[in-house]
């Protein structure tokens, strides 16, 4: 198996009247790359994935996979592996038959039964459930179903793998294990993979590049580092990583925070009113008898204890300043921002 590139150009899709599900999306995925489509629900990420898989069509724009225009090519002729949100395993077939399905329905060059069996077993050991082949889907745990769905999609040796919220139905620990395993598997198989998720941790951890989607458009497409360091707009900054939001006014390269809650901070931003995003580790709290904030909660997390403080403008996540003693719960304190991302408000 090897990966192919995906070229999405100005794709639009509208369901009935109202806002478009996709509003001119362009995206270029390199062969063998792992890309995550990240966005809140209703941002159009699943619609885009379904159009790639041939399960929906674009009203405008074009999709090319491996250099071939996909217009008018039905899903069954695309040879794309699709893993559905709810897995969509065939409930009346056992695991073996589920994985073998894509090979058995072939009209041209269907492999002989022995070869199908061998390939199914190889895939089941690849997804680490070789002992499950006679089980039915309702006898499997969520994580096992996920692995069967993946093996079934890989059985047709697709050049592109599409995953729709593949970990959505799993509990937190299984999610974490499975996504690391998936990333390893993807590298081993070398298949171009596009994953849809609303979970930013998942996207940032697993993908080479992340496309942040909002209201049917791609807000920003880049590596996880680039997105965190240089968010393109306030939406991306707010969506990625936890951040405290604070209104401020920029005058002569200095941000003055609303209500003078924090000391002014030198920034590089255009003059005028703006919204500042300050990550918890950039916000230092220290005990101060006349400080405007009160410490509400402490969450020890090794070095850099996280603090929750409240003040007249709401509640903030901060860390304890390293050069001062840890404030106590209920004590007044002051905050100081060390860095911020500023976007015009």
């Amino acid at each position, binding site marked *: 198996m090897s990966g192919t590139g995906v070229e999405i150009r100005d794709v639009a899709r509208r369901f009935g009247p109202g806002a478009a599900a996709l509003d001119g999306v362009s995206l270029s995925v390199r062969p063998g790359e792992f890309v995550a489509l990240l966005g809140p629900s209703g941002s159009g990420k699943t619609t885009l994935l379904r159009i790639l898989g041939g399960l929906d069509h674009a009203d405008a724009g074009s999709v090319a996979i491996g250099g071939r225009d996909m217009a008018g090519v039905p899903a069954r002729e695309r040879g794309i592996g699709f893993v559905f949100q709810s897995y969509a395993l065939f409930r009346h*077939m056992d695991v073996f038959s589920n994985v073998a399905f894509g090979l058995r329905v072939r009209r041209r060059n269907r492999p002989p039964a022995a070869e199908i069996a061998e390939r199914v077993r190889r895939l089941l050991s690849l997804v680490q459930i070789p002992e499950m082949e006679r089980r039915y889907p309702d006898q499997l745990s969520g994580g096992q179903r996920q692995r069967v769905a993946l093996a079934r999609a890989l059985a047709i040796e697709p050049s592109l793998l599409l995953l729709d919220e593949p970990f959505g139905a799993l509990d937190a620990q299984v999610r974490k294990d499975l996504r690391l395993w998936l990333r390893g598997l993807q590298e081993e198989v070398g298949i171009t993979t596009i994953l849809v998720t609303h979970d930013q941790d998942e996207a940032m951890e697993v993908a080479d590049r992340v496309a942040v989607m909002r209201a049917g458009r791609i807000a920003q497409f880049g590596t996880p580092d680039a997105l965190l360091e240089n968010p393109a707009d306030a939406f991306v900054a707010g969506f990625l990583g936890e951040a405290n939001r604070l209104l401020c006014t920029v005058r002569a390269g200095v941000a003055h925070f609303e209500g003078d809650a924090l000391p002014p901070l030198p920034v590089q931003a255009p003059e005028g009113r703006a919204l500042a995003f300050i990550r918890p580790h950039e916000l230092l709290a220290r005990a101060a008898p006349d400080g405007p904030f009160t410490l509400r909660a402490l969450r020890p997390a090794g070095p850099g204890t996280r603090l929750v403080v409240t003040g007249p403008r709401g509640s903030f996540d901060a860390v304890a300043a390293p050069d001062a003693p840890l404030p106590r719960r209920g004590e007044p304190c002051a905050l100081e921002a060390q860095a911020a991302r500023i976007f015009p408000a």
Partner: protein
Amino acid sequence: MTPGPAARDPAPLRWGVAILAFLLLTVFLALPLAAVFTEALRRGWGTVLDAYADPDAMAAIRLTLLVAAISVPVNTIGGIAAAWCVAKYDFPGKRLLTALIELPFSVSPVISGMVFVLLFGAQGWFGPWLQSRDIQIVFALPGLVLATVFVTFPFVARTLIPLMQEQGRAEEEAAATLGAGGWQTFRLVTLPNIKWALLSGVLLCNARAMGEFGAVSVVSGHIRGETNTMPLHIEILYNEYQFAAAFAVAALLALLALVTLVAKTVLERLSGRREMVH
């Protein structure tokens, strides 16, 4: 599963409800059915067999089976198609189609029959056209089949729609991404998922197709030995005070219905057991 103490009703209440239900079932269902069989057998097996040997009775039995043999497959295919459309696709007019599927249940069977007379009868809209080509629909087999198909259409569709809606489209979509064509998807994915419900709907449809009286009565014309189905034949015998013969044929019809019900129950058991074993 036994409910916890809080959910358990006091014993007298439970027994009271159970006895009431049992009494109602006995009075309204079991007794009449038992009456049919005892009445049929009162003058011995000889009378019963004589009643069946009567050429008009034989013709009625044959006709009933023939009408069912045509209507049930038609409604099976039509019902699957209708349920498929309603459950798996969104299209303008879907609500209207769903309502239309229910129509035969809500309209009196007599009206269902009259509609066909109005359309295809000698004075009907297409009557002259049909007559000039010597095609007989009303008062003949085609009319009986049409009326029966109309009246029994909802059974298969109604049984399938909730199940198919609940199952959604995801498995069919998965099959498509794996390279399966439309017919392969239907045969390998859709059909196995609905087979037990389908069988149950087909059996109910069959029971009703054999027992339908109202609509069939209007389009039949009551030609003895030709267009009388079993229910119509029973009515004629009864009106002619041939009670023994009437009950004999009625018993046979009831027996066919009972066999259908037993078959349905057995199938449901089997499907339930499979779910647990596999």
